[in-house]
């Protein structure tokens, strides 16, 4: 039987309340401070290094994000590592926390569907993440302006904006993972540990697992006549199951404009190419379009699974 009334009734109210909670909560402050401090330190260290080589590259602002200076990794490497942590911290107790506080039946006794509760909470988490990342983005540009004495050009701004959107989508994937586990597990600690386990799998162990799996599927990496192309393609496909890989490829293509391909390139394909010459921003965006849509699709699919599981759950505590 079809239900009457919009499933989005009350989404705005839930979003406003949850966003306020996320943005003012101690947990969020601590995590944001951690991300801000480490990222700004990485950017500052990169600035010191870039100042010695001003004039060598037309994309100084992009180098601000990609350059690593011992002992700190690059700004983008830090974001790739820390954003999932922030997203998991936001979402791991989104639904099971309501069960635990015994507020769920009270809230759902108001004239809203549970669709609105889940979507409102998710959008609020995404909004909190976006506000944090946008602040960081603006702060980094400000640091660059201050210490390099140069303004970013339009091409750099476009590429950095694209990178910001990709970072939000990347955070969205991990937020959806955290939401899924918060729906599946009643204990927030179990949900948090499981989400962290998945994060560790993809950020640390996936690069170890994929060569083994690719060898099993497509044979050894080296054939009689040189590299085994089937192995390379299989390894890359498996690698791209990880959101970390998709994000890293987006960062590489957008922030290093000389990147012309993401994956194995045959010698015949590079004949006539001006190696080291930057691609226009539009070409770089075309290059990462599958990765970007892949991240957005992963976020939607994982959220949809969480949605279906939540719809089937009994409300009683």
């Amino acid at each position, binding site marked *: *039987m*079809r*239900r*009457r*009334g919009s499933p989005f*009734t*009350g989404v705005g*109210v*839930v979003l406003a*309340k949850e966003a306020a*909670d996320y943005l003012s909560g101690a947990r969020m402050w601590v995590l944001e401070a951690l991300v801000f401090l480490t990222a700004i330190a990485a950017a500052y260290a990169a600035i010191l290094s870039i100042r010695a080589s001003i004039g060598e590259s037309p994309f100084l602002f992009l180098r601000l994000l990609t350059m690593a200076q011992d002992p700190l990794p690059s700004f983008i490497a830090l974001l790739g590592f820390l954003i999932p942590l922030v997203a998991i911290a936001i979402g791991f107790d989104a639904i099971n926390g309501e069960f635990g*506080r*015994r*507020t769920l*039946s*009270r*809230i*759902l*006794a*108001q*004239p*809203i*569907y549970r669709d609105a509760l889940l979507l409102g909470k998710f959008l609020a988490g995404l909004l909190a993440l976006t506000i944090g990342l946008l602040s960081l983005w603006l702060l980094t540009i400000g640091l660059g302006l201050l210490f390099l004495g140069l303004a970013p050009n339009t091409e750099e701004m476009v590429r950095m904006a694209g990178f910001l959107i990709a970072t939000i989508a990347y955070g969205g994937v991990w937020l959806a993972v955290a939401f899924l586990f918060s729906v599946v597990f009643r204990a927030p600690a179990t949900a948090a540990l499981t989400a962290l386990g998945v994060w560790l799998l993809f950020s640390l162990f996936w690069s170890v697992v994929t060569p083994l799996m690719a060898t099993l599927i497509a044979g050894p990496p080296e054939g009689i006549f040189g590299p085994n192309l089937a192995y390379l393609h299989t390894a890359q496909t498996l690698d791209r199951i990880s959101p970390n890989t998709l994000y890293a490829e987006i960062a590489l293509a957008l922030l290093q404009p000389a990147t012309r391909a993401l994956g194995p390139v045959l010698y015949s394909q590079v004949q006539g190419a001006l190696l080291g010459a930057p691609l226009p921003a539009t070409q770089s965006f075309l290059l990462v379009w599958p990765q970007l849509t892949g991240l957005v699709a992963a976020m939607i699919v994982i959220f949809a699974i969480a949605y279906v599981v939540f719809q089937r759950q*009994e*409300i*009683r505590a």
Partner: protein
Amino acid sequence: MTEEVVIRAQGLTKRYGATVAVDHIDLDVSAGEIVGILGPNGSGKTTTILMLLGLTEPSEGRAEVAGFDPLRDPLEVKRRVGYLPDSVGFYDGLSARDNLAYTGRLAGLSRREIDERFAEALTRVGLPDVGRDRVATFSRGMRQRLGLAEVLMKRPSIAILDEPTATLDPHSTQEFLGMIRGLKADGTAVLLSSHHLDQVQSVCDRVALFNRGRIALSGSVTELAHRVLGGGYVIDVEARGAEVRNQLLAIPGVVRVQGLGPELYRVDCARDLRPEIARQLAPSFDLLGIRFAEPSLNEVYTRYFDEARHAA
């Protein structure tokens, strides 16, 4: 005059796999009526409430709440029903006002309506000065009152209260029962689930007794007593002397005699036997008093489940 039925369940059933949690129940509640739903844990009370609220889907049967089908129009139902779950939970980090303002906004109230109704509701539940306090500092009793304030803010035509006094001390319980009577005075129909039979008896117009997912008995306490205890009248007799009990049992029409104290007896009988009792006892005993007693719901409940156990 026909009473307006605000809750009507017909053949309402809920199955979880092979387990039947609620089994073809029929239930009517009229406007301004307080109906108690009783029964052991797992007898289907809360599942019935959740189906009436549209929070869980019935496997069979249908319900109509405030003129709407909870399955098809859950939002309309929830606009008109105030629900207080057992051990109500709040966001501890928020103030009482922020908690109720949130649910008020979800219920579609404007900021002005929230402000007006919040102050009024808090005064009515006896918490006029705690609006700005964080709920983390509230006792259980205060939380229950705040939950009732949330129901009042909605100004519902139906209030569903699921074991609202389970965690309250005796004094708070009495105050809470007074508030429930206040809802009735407003014309609100109340569906009250509770294990405290004396409380149910003191506020409810009718009672539905749940057993294994079915409504085993329903009606007023007197009607239930008539069916379960086998007598329509319960008379308390105060008399001094030996063999009073046997003398009472010898009176035609007496179904049962129960000793409540050294000189106090409770007599279940099929009709008003006060004159016969007086005639039988007065010549041989000191007859100190004779009066109608309200049949005890506790007694009805205990007897029903004892017999159900024996029958099983």
